[in-house]
C-alpha cells in the first residue's frame, strides 16, 4: 500500500528536476521502502546476454541494444547537450560494449551499471575533448538545469541509501556532487558556477566523497 502510494506520487509524467530537486525526489523515493523488483528481470536477462555478446553473437547484441539504449542515451544526454555529440557518445559506447563484453564480471556490479559506466565515460571523454579544442580555455557552462528522473525508481533501496548519505552534506555540496556526476562538470566549471576557487572545489569534493564513502560502505 505504501509502495503503491509512493509510485503514484512519483509517476507524474515528465518531471523536470534541478539537481537540488533531485535530492528532494530521492527523499520521496526513499519512502517507498523495500522494492527492487522492476530492475531484476532486466538485470538477469542482461547477465544472460553479455556472455553471448562476448562470443560475437550479434543477435544477442541487438537485443542488448534494444533493452538498454534508451537508458544509456539518457545518461549521455545529461552530459552532452548537443544532440550530435550525445548520439556519437551512444554509438561509441555500444561499440565499446561489444568489444569489452568479455571483461564484464558478473556479480561485481549490476550489468546495467556496468553498461551505464561505459556510456558515462564515453560521454565525459567527448565533453573533455570538445572543451580542449576551445583554444581560449574558456569554461563553457551548460544549463545546470533539468535532469529527468525515472518516476518508478526501481532502484529505490540503493537510491535511498545514496540519498541518506548525500543528505549528510550541505546542500551546496550535494549540488556539486550531482552536477559532476550527472553532467560531468570539472572542478573549473564548478568553480565558476559556485564562485569559489578550483582548489577549494577540489577540497570540498574530496571531503564530500569521503563522507559518502564512509556512509555508503557502512550501510552495505
Amino acid at each position, binding site marked *: 500500500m505504501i509502495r503503491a502510494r509512493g509510485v503514484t506520487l512519483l509517476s507524474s509524467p515528465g518531471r523536470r528536476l534541478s539537481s537540488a530537486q533531485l535530492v528532494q525526489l530521492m527523499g520521496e523515493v526513499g519512502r517507498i521502502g523495500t522494492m527492487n523488483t522492476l530492475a531484476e528481470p532486466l538485470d538477469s536477462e542482461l547477465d544472460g546476454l553479455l556472455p553471448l555478446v562476448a562470443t560475437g553473437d550479434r543477435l544477442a547484441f541487438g537485443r542488448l541494444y534494444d533493452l538498454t539504449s534508451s537508458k544509456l542515451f539518457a545518461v549521455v544526454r545529461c552530459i552532452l547537450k548537443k544532440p550530435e555529440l550525445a548520439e556519437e557518445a551512444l554509438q561509441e559506447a555500444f561499440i565499446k560494449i561489444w568489444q569489452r563484453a568479455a571483461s564484464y564480471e558478473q556479480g561485481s556490479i549490476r550489468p546495467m551499471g556496468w553498461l551505464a559506466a561505459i556510456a558515462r565515460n564515453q560521454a565525459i571523454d567527448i565533453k573533455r575533448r570538445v572543451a580542449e579544442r576551445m583554444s581560449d580555455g574558456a569554461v563553457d557552462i551548460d544549463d545546470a538545469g533539468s535532469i529527468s*528522473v525515472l518516476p518508478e525508481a526501481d532502484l529505490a533501496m540503493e537510491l535511498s541509501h545514496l540519498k541518506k548519505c548525500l543528505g549528510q552534506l550541505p546542500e551546496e555540496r550535494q549540488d556539486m556532487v550531482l552536477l559532476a*556526476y550527472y553532467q560531468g562538470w570539472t572542478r573549473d566549471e564548478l568553480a565558476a558556477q559556485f564562485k569559489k576557487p578550483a582548489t577549494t572545489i577540489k577540497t570540498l569534493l574530496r571531503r564530500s566523497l569521503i563522507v559518502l564513502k564512509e556512509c555508503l560502505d557502512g550501510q552495505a
Partner: protein
Amino acid sequence: MDRHEELDELAAEFVLGALPAAERRDAILLMAGDAEFAALVKAWERRLVPLSLALEPVDAPPNIRGAVMKAIAGDRPDSSTIVALERNARAWRLATAAASAIAASLAAFIVFGSYSSQLPNQRYVAVLQAEGPGPGFLASIDLKSGNISVRTVGAEAQPGKSFELWALGGGRDKPQSLGVIDAAYRIPASKLGKIDPAILADTLFAVSLEPEGGSPTSQPTGPVLFTGKLVATD
C-alpha cells in the same frame, strides 16, 4: 596520505566526473596499468551508479542502432587491448614486486599515448619500478603534442632536487635526456627530447634524482629512482 588513499581519492574524482581532461587521461591509463587503482574505480562505480540508473530513459534516434551494427560488422569482441595490457602490467608487477615491498608501493608509471599514429587507440605503457626510496608518480606522454605530464602518487618532491627522465637502449650509445620534470610535474613541450617511434619498444626509461634544474652533465648523475620498459598493448 599514503599511496592507497591517494589512489582512492583519484578514483573517486574520476568516477564522479570532475577531473579535467589531462588528469582524466592519466587516470584512464593508470587504470589500464594498475590493478589496485582499477579495483578502486570499480568500487566507486558501484557506489554511485544508482544515480545513473535512476534516470528516465530517453529513446535514441532510430538510425543509431543501424550505425552501431554496421560499425561492429566484421569486428569481433576482443579481449586484447585493455585486458592484455592489464595482464602484462600485472605480470610485470609480480615479477618485480618480490624484490622489495617498499619498491612495489613506490612503483611509478610512465604512460605513452600514441595519438599520432594511424592506430588512434594504440597506447604504450611503461611500468617504472622504484630502485630506491622516492615518491611514486604517474607520467603520461602525448606524442602528438609532445607534452609530458606527471602526477605524484605519494610523497612530495625533494627540495633542491629535480627529477629527470631518460631514455636508454634501443641502439643509443648513452642515456638520452627526455627532459626535467618541473615543479608542476610537467616537461614542457619545448624542452622535451624527441623519441624515435621505431625504437620506442626497445627503449628503457629511467627517472633519476638530479640537482635542481637537471643534470649538469647531460648524463644522469644522481640515483636512478625508477626504471621500466614499455609494455606492448597488442
